[in-house]
């Protein structure tokens, strides 16, 4: 029996998978990964089902040590400086920790969440078919709470399969696309335009339940109290202070503030990765466009196994080096201590 021991980890890090939809009528929050494409990419790298449970790692650094045998991992999502026993490891690729070796991950760059998938998956007891942590409801396995140092993620010994990298579409800074509704008509045309024309930032008080937006004050046509109705991932509700909150996978299943718009499915993961304080904008699309994008996103998820490639012979990742060198300091390919850590 191999295991990956969490030797250090920051907040907002937990085991997540595809979540537990199906019981929202009883108030059960679906939870699941903030960035489903990155979860699926990490899992695909090590031959797992796309929405198997993996470690969702928040913005801060983390270290993991293999015990009881080798452990093979896949890394995707927000990239970080990564090394195993002094060997640099690239994101969007797999790597193997020999028994006793430690994977060191730096701060997240250009995003908030990274995904560490473990070959053969994480052992746990599914609750409503999912290991995803929902700390408020006491759900999740092997631990019904965010990860802490000392936690153990049990798995089977590494297969020894050749390492892989995965080619994903290039990152984009394009506006986050929304469709207006369900309560778009609770807002005047001027306020909807203000919502689209404003530059927004995500507040540092955001979490897996919701992202609070800072920017313009959006006014309601008549009052901010509506009768509670159902919510979805990406619902943009506007409370009395006019500062919108975008509901994320740990959202309440119902809410009593008017929802001006909804983030489209294809952009939910990209939105979740928006770092606190970084300016961004929204763009309205039609339902037909949003559904066409949802179908394309679905096809992208299914194409992931076809996007696997072999790792280059040298094991030298130019992109990781270039990322590490953004501050202009000298960076050694072999000396991890020279890598710049981008503080959030």
């Amino acid at each position, binding site marked *: 029996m191999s295991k990956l021991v969490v030797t250090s980890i920051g907040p907002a890090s937990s085991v997540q998978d595809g979540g537990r939809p199906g*019981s929202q009528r009883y108030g059960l*929050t679906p939870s699941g990964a903030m960035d489903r494409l990155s979860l699926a990419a990490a899992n695909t790298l090590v031959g797992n089902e796309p929405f198997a449970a993996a470690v969702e790692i928040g913005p801060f650094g983390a270290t993991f040590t293999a015990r009881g045998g080798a452990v093979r991992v896949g890394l995707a999502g927000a990239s970080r400086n990564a090394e195993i026993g002094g060997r640099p490891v690239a994101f969007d690729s797999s790597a193997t920790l020999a028994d006793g070796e430690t994977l060191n991950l730096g701060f997240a760059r250009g995003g908030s969440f990274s995904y560490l998938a473990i070959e053969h998956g994480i052992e746990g007891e599914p609750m409503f078919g999912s290991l995803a942590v929902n700390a*408020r409801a006491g759900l999740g396995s092997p631990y019904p709470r965010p990860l802490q140092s000392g936690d153990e993620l049990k798995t089977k010994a590494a297969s020894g399969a050749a390492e892989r990298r995965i080619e994903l579409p290039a990152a984009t800074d394009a506006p986050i696309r929304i469709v207006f*509704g369900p309560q778009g008509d609770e807002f005047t045309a001027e306020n909807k335009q203000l919502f689209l024309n404003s530059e927004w930032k995500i507040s540092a008080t955001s979490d897996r339940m919701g992202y609070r937006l800072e920017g313009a004050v959006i006014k309601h046509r008549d009052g901010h109290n509506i009768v509670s109705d159902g919510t979805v991932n*990406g619902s943009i509700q506007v409370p009395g202070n006019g500062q919108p909150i975008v509901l994320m996978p740990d959202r309440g299943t119902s809410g009593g503030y008017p929802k001006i718009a909804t983030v489209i499915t294809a952009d939910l993961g990209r939105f979740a990765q928006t770092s606190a304080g970084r300016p961004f904008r929204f763009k309205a699309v039609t339902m037909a466009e949003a*559904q066409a994008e*949802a179908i394309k996103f679905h096809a992208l998820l299914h194409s992931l196994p076809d996007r696997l490639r072999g790792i280059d012979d040298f094991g030298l990742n130019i992109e990781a080096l270039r990322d590490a060198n953004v501050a202009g300091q000298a960076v050694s390919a072999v000396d991890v201590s020279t890598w710049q850590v981008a503080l959030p």
Partner: protein
Amino acid sequence: MAEPLSPPRLLPSGDSAITVEFSRTIDDAANRRVLALDRVIAAEPIAGITETVPTYRSLLVHYDPVQITFDALGEQLLARAAKAPPTEGGTRRWRIPITYGGEHGIDLEDVAKALQTTPDEIVARHAAGDYRVAMIGFTPGWSYLSGLDKFLHLPRRKEPRLVTPAGTVSIGGIQTGVQCLAGPSGWHLLGRTPVRTYQLHRDPTFLLEPGDAVSFTAVDAKTFAEQDRAAEAGEFIAELVAP
């Protein structure tokens, strides 16, 4: 009497869900139509629907846009809504024990003062109510009940509490509710029930369904303590009195 029912509004909730809205206010007739549409969809499924979530005034329908478009699903939902009879069909009725006041219902005295009456009067009126589960939401098992005596209608607290105890029975606005887990609340806490509306390893995990009828029985704190232990061990405690 045979006035045709007005069709619900179809509101887009992103590219993968439709809110089928029957009313903009809390309205028992609208809630019955929500639950009727929910039953019809369960009986005659529409390919592509992944989950339905009934609330007071609307049914949220989650679907897979790879399988069905907004327009095609909207049409089918309107057709189903037009033929869904908002009648009671085999409604289950539960009797649920509550201990009122004291440490279990810390707002009882204040509610009595605010409504210019005695705590006994508040308890008598609340316990006499004939309620229906209008929706379950917010956190697992949090059951919102319609049918609160008008005398007990009271605005929510100005300062919501960050933590209220598991099993709390409270009133807020024109509603009353039973929460299962400890959590934040802006409602007035009248008492507690030992009944777990949600318990992970019990069958069924969720005791109440939207549409179920509920009445309360006042019990003393000693009975509460005994029943609380039994409930923790997996007993329902809630009594199914009909059908």
